[in-house]
């Protein structure tokens, strides 16, 4: 019998990966390509959507070649994508209109202030279950319509289409299917999270023509059949990358949570079929929807800068040659020497939501070496996790018992130990650190019957590593206090 596989496309912030996965949920092969980051102005971040599609087109066959597999061995393709990144393109030619505006981009900052004061803002917040913030794609879409002459009119006529990355990729994979999934749609500010369809009132609030929006579909269910990159293969799932990771960690039951450590870090807690509204600065979001079933919701704590702080340390300060060396450098000292780095590069996300905050390094003395700075870089990720976990415990009324982690930074043992220490709970890594891809693969495989059910997927989950807390309570509290004082130094830096 010929082995069959599922392919995941993980379209991330810095790179695109195509991953071939087997029935056990294990990686068979991987092909990866970084794409160019454009920083035209401070606070602006852009991608070339055409470049990203070209990468997918090339990486798909490459991943299959590395697996020694042919296209007819692929049962389904699933997509996990960077969320909230906004792409516009011409319906007739398929050509992107300008660069895609990336989720980290803060150009809509001033506009958000104006929108927040406008009548109807409360309704948008209520229907979307999100705060008005630069993070989400709706305001970005508004900005693009405002800054390309004639675009609004063309959009009204249906000549210009909007999508987040999965929509753009499915459009190209299928040669013109214009669809999104509930998880991605739930990050636009335009969706009604209860009806799971675009809200006419919210569209009117932002002045977004419905003609340019994709159809909203369940995350797991056949979207269509690919004609490019994987010709003849069904596209079985699309999920925002963080929801995909929750799915890949098999957090299917209410109360189960995971944190993915990548460019940014994202802690999601499954809250079941009930939408929980946060009173502690977390987001309510759609976790996933399997076709024919009600949606599952999640509480999310997003941290903008974790892995990207290490990249900054590598590329801008040039203190290390590769990201993993941060651990080597951090281990040259035994503590942070009193130094703290709060990476509010584009404001602070959960639980603060301070877009006017900017990063600080505090506690500098002549004693501080680059080793201490490396420690402070890693500790920043841990403390930001702690703040989100505290908020989640307060919102859900439950205390987190263990944290399931994944993502590239789980290779950093010093960081994982520090997270266990500051949370005072065990930190557990599953036997597949690539949970974003795995979630997309699981969804796609489930849609076409490659895996029978959620229970079958759960059996694939195994513990690969565990870090147990070992920090004394007194030290944890002192350090947390220092961290919080450091955070308060970032506030009100950008003046309106």
């Amino acid at each position, binding site marked *: 019998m010929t082995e069959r596989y599922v392919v995941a496309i993980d379209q991330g912030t810095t790179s695109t990966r195509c991953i071939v996965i087997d029935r056990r949920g294990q*990686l068979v092969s991987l092909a990866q390509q970084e794409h160019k980051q454009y920083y035209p102005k401070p606070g602006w971040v852009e991608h070339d959507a055409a470049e990203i599609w070209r990468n997918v087109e090339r990486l798909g066959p490459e991943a299959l070649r590395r697996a020694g597999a042919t296209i007819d061995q692929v049962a389904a393709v699933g997509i996990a994508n960077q969320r909230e990144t906004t792409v516009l393109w011409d319906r007739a030619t398929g050509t992107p209109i300008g660069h895609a505006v990336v989720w980290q981009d803060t150009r809509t900052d001033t506009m958000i202030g104006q929108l927040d004061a406008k009548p109807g803002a409360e309704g948008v917040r209520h229907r979307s279950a999100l705060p008005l913030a630069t993070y989400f794609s709706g305001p970005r879409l508004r900005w693009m319509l405002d800054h390309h002459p004639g675009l609004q009119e063309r959009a009204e006529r249906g000549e210009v289409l909007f999508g987040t990355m999965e929509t753009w990729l499915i459009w190209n994979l299928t040669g013109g299917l214009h669809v999104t999934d509930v998880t991605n749609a739930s990050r636009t500010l335009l969706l009604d999270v209860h009806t799971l369809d675009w809200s006419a009132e919210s569209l009117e609030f932002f002045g977004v023509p419905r003609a340019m929006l994709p159809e909203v579909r369940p995350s797991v269910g056949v979207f269509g059949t690919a004609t490019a990159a994987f010709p003849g293969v069904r596209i079985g799932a699309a999920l925002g990358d963080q929801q995909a990771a929750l799915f890949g960690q098999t957090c299917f039951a209410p109360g189960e949570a995971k944190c993915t450590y990548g460019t940014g870090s994202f802690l999601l807690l499954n809250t079941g079929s009930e939408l929980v509204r946060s009173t502690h600065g977390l987001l309510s979001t759609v976790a996933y929807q399997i076709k024919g079933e009600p949606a599952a919701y999640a509480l999310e704590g997003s941290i903008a800068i974790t892995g990207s702080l290490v990249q900054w340390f590598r590329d801008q300060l040039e203190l290390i040659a590769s990201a*993993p060396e941060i651990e080597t450098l951090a281990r040259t000292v035994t503590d942070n020497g009193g130094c703290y780095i709060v990476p509010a590069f584009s404001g602070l996300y959960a639980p603060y939501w301070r877009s006017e905050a900017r990063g600080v390094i505090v506690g500098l003395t002549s004693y501080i070496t680059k080793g201490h700075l490396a420690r402070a870089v890693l500790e920043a990720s841990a403390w930001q996790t702690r703040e989100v976990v505290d908020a989640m415990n307060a919102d859900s009324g439950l205390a987190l018992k263990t944290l399931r982690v994944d993502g590239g930074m789980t290779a950093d043992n010093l960081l994982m130990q520090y997270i266990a220490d500051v949370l005072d709970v065990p930190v557990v890594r599953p*036997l597949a650190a690539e949970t974003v891809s795995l979630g997309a693969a699981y969804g796609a495989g489930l849609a076409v019957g490659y895996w029978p059910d959620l229970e079958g997927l759960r059996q694939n989950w195994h513990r690969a*590593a565990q870090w147990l807390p070992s920090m004394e309570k007194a030290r944890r509290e002192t350090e947390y206090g220092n961290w919080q004082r450091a955070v308060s130094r970032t506030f009100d830096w950008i003046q309106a």
Partner: protein
Amino acid sequence: MQSIERAAAVLRLLAGGAGRLSLGEIARSLDLAKGTTHGILQTLRKVGFVEQDRVSGHYQLGAAMLRLGTGYLDVNELRSRSINWADPLASRSGEAVRIGTVLEGQVLVVHHVFRPDDTFQTLDVGSLLPMHATALGKSLLAYGATPPTSLDRFTSRTIGTQRELAAALRVVRECGWSADIEELTPGEASIAAPIRAYGGLVVGAIGISGHVERLCDSRYQPRPPLVANVRDAARAVSRDLGAARR
């Protein structure tokens, strides 16, 4: 081997000069064609011996030159680059996986994946294992690591003499993989294979360990499917580190 001579000349020039040199300056100094010089510089850059300034495009000695002799691959980088292949090895073999590198005559465990049975296990990253009594150590010894001077005995099966060790390492080199069968701990066995980087340089070893009844067949030999799993994982990591397919 003219190209090696030229590469050596480029390195000496960069080491002797003050600051960074442009392609033109290097080519003129060595009386070489610009195209030839560029080719040499790009290869040296790929292996980390030369770095190019992002703004000026000028060249200088790379960080890898300074670390020659102290092991050129950062252990945290080795873990980061191999983590994706260690997980599938644990899944396919059903055993715990470790990746090791040489540290002062011992095997330093740089990565550890639990045996995937969800029982309680403790991470032992950072711990040290004896070279001559583990599969990881034998894979490292067979491809260039300095053998320990004293061969401590852990079980009745531990290799006890340099002669025996040399013979065992010859077998490892012939087969391309190594094993320890109850040589460190009674009832336990391990299987490992070398991880290679560019040029075939062995920078570490990856292996599995577990109960001897699970790892070995009725003839007390490592089970061939497990050996194949280990070698596949070692090849996958090596490929990611830039070793040629072999």
